[in-house]
């Protein structure tokens, strides 16, 4: 690290201090400027980027702490060290609390000053490097997870790139297991909001009362068990993105609340009265046909139009069979690495089975099957018997616990016409566990039951 690269601004109303420090830091090889007051410092910072500001705590007019506050509130990219004229614990604590990197007491021990400056600049450099790397990483990885050379996938990637930069609401439609969350993550990572959080809400996994408090937060004592005030997902997103998965599963009451948040851009916590301003982008996803639900009166049309500003249709895997080998190879590589196993590929029989399968559970089903194969298979190749896919030609039943559980869940779900609450009760598990199992096994209701459910 050559100190010549760094620039330092000395802010002090005393000429002798400015001169001494400018002289000293010039000798140390830094590029040094001086300002006699906080406003002068701010105008210098407005015109050029400086790595470090060393400011006196006591100055007439705007003091060092006010300058620090201004630098922080304007999010200027510079580190700050505060100088105090005498050892004032109170001033030092205030400086550190307000985000100063360090404070030094005049006169400085040369070694201490030198170390404080070196550390501040090193931290500044690391922060900048970290930001740059995160940006590069986000850009390079955002789309590579969406594997597929097929035309529909190419179109999806193009749509993601188009919509990421604009702040509009996105509706992702696709069957279970097609990768809707991956698309949402890719959009977030390519968007200007990428340095803020992406908050994921699985609407289907939450009961109506829970979803309200999850989304909007709650005040202390809002309901039994609400011991603390809690921020909701919209508040937690803080300038980022809220991904509402399984949006079709929310009740009409929550739909109304959600619509209001999308329109007003403010929320009221459960049990609260004060509206709170929130800044977020919404990406919603569903495995159902929302326009059908609108016609049936089960989804508010105004909310539907709010969400459906830009729609991305994710193709089911059976419509892009050509991508199966690529995806299978990707998951094989991923799980081999995770489980430290040395698989090099699939033998011919395994590959034929993979390509001929109908994939009702889509990419998630493929991922689960490959993961299992990596556990049970013998290196270096995955063979057909390692794949938990029912082969009609052989007729033999897969007796693994997983396969039995999957079949049993389907049976019970069908018995209750896919009413998940009743099915969960019959299975002796809670609805959320059932929900996760349905996702895991890539189960979906047959067409006829979907339309008769109301």
């Amino acid at each position: 690290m050559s100190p010549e690269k760094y620039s330092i601004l000395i802010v002090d109303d005393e000429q002798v201090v400015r001169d001494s420090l400018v002289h000293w830091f010039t000798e140390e090889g830094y590029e040094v400027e001086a300002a006699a007051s906080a406003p002068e410092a701010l105008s210098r910072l407005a015109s050029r980027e400086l790595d470090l500001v060393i400011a006196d705590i006591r100055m007439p007019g705007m003091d060092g702490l006010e300058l620090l506050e201004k630098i922080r509130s304007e999010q200027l990219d510079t580190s700050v060290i505060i100088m105090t004229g005498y050892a004032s614990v109170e001033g030092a604590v205030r400086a550190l609390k307000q985000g100063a990197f360090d404070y030094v007491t005049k006169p400085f021990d040369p070694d201490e000053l030198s170390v404080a400056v070196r550390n501040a600049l090193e931290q500044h450099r690391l922060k900048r490097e970290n930001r740059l790397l995160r940006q590069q990483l986000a850009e390079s990885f955002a789309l590579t997870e969406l594997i597929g050379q097929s035309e529909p996938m190419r179109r999806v990637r193009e749509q993601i790139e188009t919509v990421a930069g604009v702040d509009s609401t996105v509706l992702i439609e696709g069957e279970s297991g097609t990768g809707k969350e991956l698309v949402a993550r890719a959009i977030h990572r390519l968007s200007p909001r990428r340095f803020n959080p992406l908050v994921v809400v699985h609407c289907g996994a939450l009961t109506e009362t829970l979803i309200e408090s999850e989304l909007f937060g709650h005040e202390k004592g809002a309901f039994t068990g609400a011991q603390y005030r809690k921020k909701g997902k919209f508040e937690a997103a803080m300038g980022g993105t809220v991904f509402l998965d399984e949006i079709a599963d929310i009740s009409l009451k929550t739909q109304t609340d959600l619509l209001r948040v999308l329109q007003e851009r403010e929320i009221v916590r459960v049990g609260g009265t004060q509206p709170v301003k929130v800044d977020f982008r919404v990406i919603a996803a569903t495995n159902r046909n929302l326009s059908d639900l609108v016609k049936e009166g089960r989804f508010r049309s105004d909310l539907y139009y709010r969400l459906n500003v830009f729609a991305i249709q994710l193709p089911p895997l059976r419509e892009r069979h050509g991508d199966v080998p690529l995806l299978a190879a990707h998951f094989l590589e991923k799980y081999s690495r995770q489980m430290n196993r040395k698989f090099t590929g699939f033998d011919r029989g395994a590959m034929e089975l993979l390509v001929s399968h109908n994939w009702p559970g889509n990419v998630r089903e493929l991922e689960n099957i490959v993961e299992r194969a990596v556990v049970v298979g013998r290196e270096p190749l995955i063979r057909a018997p390692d794949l938990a896919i029912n082969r009609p030609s052989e007729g033999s039943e897969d007796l693994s616990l997983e396969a039995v559980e999957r079949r049993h869940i389907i049976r019970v779900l069908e018995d209750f016409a896919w009413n998940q609450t009743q099915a969960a009760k019959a299975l002796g598990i809670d609805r959320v566990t059932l929900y996760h199992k349905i996702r895991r096994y890539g189960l979906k209701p047959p067409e006829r039951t979907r339309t008769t459910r109301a």
Partner: protein
Amino acid sequence: MKLPAWVAGVRLVPVGGLPPELLEEISRRSGIPVGSPALDPSPAYDPARDQYDSTRLLLELKARWEGRVVGAAGLDLFIPVLTFVFGEAEMGGRAAVFSIHRLRQEFYGLPANRDLLVERALREMLHELGHLAGLPHCPDAACLMSPAHSVEQVDAKNAQYCPACRTRLECLPG
């Protein structure tokens, strides 16, 4: 060590508190002649700190000498924002000053060591001379131009400029 040609015009001027035989040895070993008369440091004295303002000493030296000059002192030097300095120089200017006060082992409660003191004094003087020639601090910790805020750091240096700093010194106009 062989010093660049432009150093030939530099004079070593006693500033106070430095035993004459030490000044002689530093002059002999560095090849820089002693100039006279000695500088009276009293205008730079700060009674509140019981130290001498090195920036003020540089001004006094420049007022009394035409050419390049290095003041050699045995006084406790400071600049207003720092608790002390080993020395100070005008970057690319005419005057520099250094002191043996905090280079002495006795200052740290240790037994005196004359040879070590001369070594440290020579390093400190050559360091300030480098600044006088316009060299900033060097990131190479073994180079004479690396910053030193403690005697340990002075001792850790080589008694030489690193090749990069030497090249820059030799290229300077005489």
